[in-house]
């Protein structure tokens, strides 16, 4: 019965593949839990698999494993020699302590040694289970799917990077599934093949897997059309952001409604830029603070579309330097927007591109014949804005009251904002005379009052907690989001218009272009950043950098000569009446309609039409199910012409077997122990024909009589067709 299972070489290949698959399980576990000695664990798995393969007596196998585990414990946890009296007694006393702790349900008392023993037991069980799946069931599919899900989940929700692991799993899994299918097939047909013959299957299978993987690896791949699922899932489940102690990954994200939580670095390249000096690269701003994070209010004005190379009007007037500066961005990730420096004048890309500038969030989106695209190489002309010190000195607090209503949305604050935040803002700016001085005072406040920059151990505010309040008074540690959000809120509590900006900082200089006097910067996900823009009445919008350790200040012209530009001039022409932003939901909806991000739109489209999608999917599934269940109705329509055209030696046998299957689908089941002839008689009695007996007699002649050549398919065709058509009626 177990022909393939006795083929040791074949089984050895299977077990090697299983070992590789188990390695993929072990690696992230070891990495994420900071466990050492990965190789020693792997050796344990290897030993277990070899003993399973050789079918070592269970007592010997268990003995060897226990010996290994004991050796591991002594080797890792004690300094003593192998199996010295000391070591053994140490292990035993440790185990005793742990069992006492277990019975007392005092989980914290258990030691590492005991946990290691438990981990080994887990590995032991896992190997046993897989041994059962591979060695007895000859089926690995479930385990394979579990592995893929496991790695995908870890890759998505943990710092573990499964990019290459998933490829390895794919290769190993396909090989395993293929070989096990072969094994089941051999067993089903009771074939006992030698390894030489099996190699005829195994080698092509391996080549197929290798070739398809290689092709898949080197083919160009489209970017993800689905937004990062993590915020989507978390927002959907209402959990809201990574909880305290959870770890996110740095990078440019779309959803800022739930700030907080720790981050780990991610040095995935975002883009490279060739520019004279490092710049802050702006993406967009957000205006509505929700006590937990940022959202965008409804669209305030239609986006303005500019052509290639056409002069763009952002809310920052280019500076007065004689010559504009050139910047060339080579994108290494697919962003559906333009990253632009302060004082941008023109944008240039190869091709018929236009650029849509959204006044709501200042996002610039490249368009190709009206449709959003993801830029690859962007050339920008810009002139860093400069601010006249004279003008800044005249930014009196009284002027704030005269600002037009368009600025109201930048003064928004949630009603629940604790009073002590407002009090703090007043206290910080007690001695400041102008708006500009107030802003600078707040900007510098953090550095001088014991705040700490940190990516780790950053909590997420509780349900009734304010994000800013928590940072300012409780934790006093955080990263750019904490600093910038706090500054915006503090400014707003003084009625100074301010907004929260997202983008990237200058990155790391990696090269110097000697002939053009420019520098090359590498910007990675680690450089994703947020900062502050505040409105100086009579001067305009200005960049502020409250985050400790970052230096993104605006240029100040101390000549006191430059004419300050009228705020009205800086505003975009024909800006419509700004709607009141009160309803948070409405704001979110507006953000959806407005946000030109391709991801956002895809995600939102699906979210908006969720009902339709679910309905469509269910309808499709239902249809497919019905088609599948009723396949005996339509299959003959395909089968009859197919077999009619065929003329090979085995055609009749295949056609006959097909007929059996078709009859089975029709509902007349042949029992396992029922002979073809008795089945045929039953079929004939059922249909009132004689054809099945006739066909069966010929089939028996071909199969049991070993004389397939005596059967004439042409003569039998009609009977066959007649019967198969009856099954569809």
């Amino acid at each position, binding site marked *: 019965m177990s022909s393939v299972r006795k083929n040791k070489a074949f089984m050895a290949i299977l077990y090697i593949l299983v070992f590789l698959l188990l390695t993929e399980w072990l690696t992230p576990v070891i990495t994420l839990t900071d466990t050492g000695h990965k190789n020693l664990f792997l050796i344990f798995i290897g030993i277990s698999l070899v003993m399973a393969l050789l079918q070592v007596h269970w007592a010997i196998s268990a003995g060897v494993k226990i010996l290994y585990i004991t050796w591991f414990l002594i080797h890792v946890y004690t300094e003593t020699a192998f199996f010295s009296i000391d070591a053994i007694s140490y292990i035993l006393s440790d185990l005793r302590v742990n069992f006492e702790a277990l019975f007392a349900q005092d989980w914290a008392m258990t030691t590492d040694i005991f946990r290691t023993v438990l981990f080994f037991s887990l590995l032991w069980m896992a190997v046993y289970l897989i041994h059962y799946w591979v060695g007895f069931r000859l089926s690995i599919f479930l385990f394979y799917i579990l592995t893929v899900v496991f790695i995908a989940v870890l890759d998505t929700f943990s710092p573990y990077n499964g990019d290459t692991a998933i490829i390895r799993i794919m290769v190993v899994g396909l090989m395993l599934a293929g070989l096990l299918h072969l094994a089941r097939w051999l067993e089903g047909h009771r074939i006992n093949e030698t390894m030489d013959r099996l190699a005829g299957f195994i080698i092509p299978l391996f080549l197929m897997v290798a070739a398809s993987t290689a092709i898949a690896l080197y083919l160009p791949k489209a970017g993800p059309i689905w937004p990062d699922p993590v915020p989507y899932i978390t927002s959907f489940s209402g959990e809201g952001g990574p909880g305290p102690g959870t770890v996110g990954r740095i990078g440019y994200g779309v959803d800022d409604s739930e700030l907080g939580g720790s981050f780990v670095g991610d040095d995935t390249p975002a883009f490279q830029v060739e520019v004279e000096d490092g710049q802050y690269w702006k993406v967009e701003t957000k205006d509505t603070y929700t006590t937990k994070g940022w959202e965008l209010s409804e669209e305030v004005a239609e986006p303005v579309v500019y052509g290639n190379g056409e002069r763009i009007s952002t809310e920052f007037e280019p500076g007065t330097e004689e010559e504009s500066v050139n910047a060339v961005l080579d994108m290494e990730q697919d962003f559906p927007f333009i990253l632009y420096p302060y004082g941008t004048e023109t944008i240039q890309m190869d091709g018929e591109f236009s650029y849509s500038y959204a006044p709501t969030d200042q996002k610039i989106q490249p368009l190709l014949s009206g449709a959003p695209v993801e830029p690859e190489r962007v050339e920008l002309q810009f002139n860093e804005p400069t601010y006249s010190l004279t003008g800044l000195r005249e930014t009196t607090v009284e002027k704030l009251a005269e600002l037009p209503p368009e600025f109201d949305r930048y003064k928004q604050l949630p009603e629940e904002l604790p009073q002590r935040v407002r009090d703090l803002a007043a206290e910080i700016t007690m001695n400041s005379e102008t708006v500009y001085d107030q802003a600078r005072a707040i900007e510098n406040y953090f550095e001088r009052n014991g705040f700490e920059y940190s990516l780790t151990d950053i909590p997420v505010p509780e349900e009734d907690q304010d994000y800013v309040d928590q940072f300012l008074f409780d934790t006093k540690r955080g990263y750019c989001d904490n600093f910038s959000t706090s500054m915006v809120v503090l400014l707003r509590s003084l009625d100074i218009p301010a907004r929260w900006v997202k983008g990237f900082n200058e990155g790391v200089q990696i090269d110097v272009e000697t002939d053009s006097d420019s520098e090359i910067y590498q910007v990675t996900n680690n450089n994703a950043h947020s900062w502050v823009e505040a409105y100086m009445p009579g001067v305009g919008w200005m960049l502020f950098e409250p985050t400790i350790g970052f230096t993104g200040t605006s240029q100040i012209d101390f000549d006191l000569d430059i004419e300050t530009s009228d705020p009205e001039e800086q505003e975009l022409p024909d800006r419509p009446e700004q709607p009141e932003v009160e309803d948070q939901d409405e704001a979110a909806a507006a953000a959806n309609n407005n946000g030109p991000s391709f991801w956002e739109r895809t995600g939102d489209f699906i979210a908006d039409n969720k009902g339709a999608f679910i309905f469509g999917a269910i309808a499709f599934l239902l249809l497919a199910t019905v088609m599948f269940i009723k396949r005996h109705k339509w299959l003959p329509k395909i089968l009859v012409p197919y077999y009619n055209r065929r003329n090979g030696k085995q055609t009749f046998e295949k056609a006959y*077997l097909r007929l059996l299957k078709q009859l089975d689908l029709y509902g007349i089941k042949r029992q*396992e122990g029922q*002979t073809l002839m008795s089945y045929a008689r039953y079929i004939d009695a059922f249909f009132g024909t004689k054809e099945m007996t006739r066909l069966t007699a010929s089939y028996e002649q071909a199969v049991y009589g070993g004389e397939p050549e005596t059967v004439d398919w042409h003569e039998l065709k009609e009977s066959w067709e007649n019967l198969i058509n009856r099954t569809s009626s």
Partner: protein
Amino acid sequence: MNPKEQLSKVIDNIEKVIIGKRDIVELSMVAMLSHGHVLLEDVPGVGKTMLVRALAKSVGADFKRIQFTPDLLPSDVVGVSIYNPKDMEFNFRPGPIMGNIILADEINRTSPKTQSSLLEAMEEASVTIDGVTMHIPKPFFVMATQNPIEYEGTYPLPEAQLDRFLLKIKMGYPTPKEEMEVLNRSQLSMPIEDLQSVISLEELLELQRQAKNITVDETIRSYIVDLARQTRVDPYVYLGVSPRGSIALMKSAQAYALLKGRDFVTPDDVQYLAKFVFGHRIMLRSEARYDGISAEEITERILTKTKVPVQRLVGQ
């Protein structure tokens, strides 16, 4: 004349005497064609003797009958050497076993010693007396009858001996209609007296040779092996079918295919004969008896459980 016609002529001929038992007649022919012997288990008077006599007459064979009694001795079966004072030497007087077709009536009434003398002769088709081996003329066919073993005063055949019978058949009573017909025919004279032979002994030997050449496909062989293996693992079975049983099933299936005019064996042949080949070869545990399950039921269950091969083996 092809084998099927020859054989149906024989069967028709026998049916003149044995009414409504065509399957039994066929099975007896199957056993004879595959050099086997038959154990008929039934109550007296249902036509066992008549069947064997008709068979012998139809093929023109020599018919002998041994009535087994508790005091029968082995020498009464195989023969004995008697000292002849005239010639001053021992002369061999062959026993009734030295015939073509033997009816061993009520075999379980005699002592095991005498039983085994018969069974050894059946297996080897020869007898050895005083160091001299004598071959029994061919064809050699024994039909042994036994009363159901629950009856008083019987010596049940040991398992090893039962294995030597190719088939075990139960005759059964005729239906009322058939019994009426029996009465009609027996009113004036026993019809057996008028029976003529329809084929010669040489023709019978030729048919035996042909039966050996019937194709048994690989799939069928593995099916037979599967069935035999299943009897060995059945929880109710104490002793399953031996490899000799597998051989018996294959040989009888070949003969049955010949009888049906086919030159290959089908799973139907195997299934039909399995009951008669396996029935006496399966020793049941006492649990089976408590549960009221017979060897025939076990065989039936195995037949429904075991996959019938419907496809050619790959690479054939």
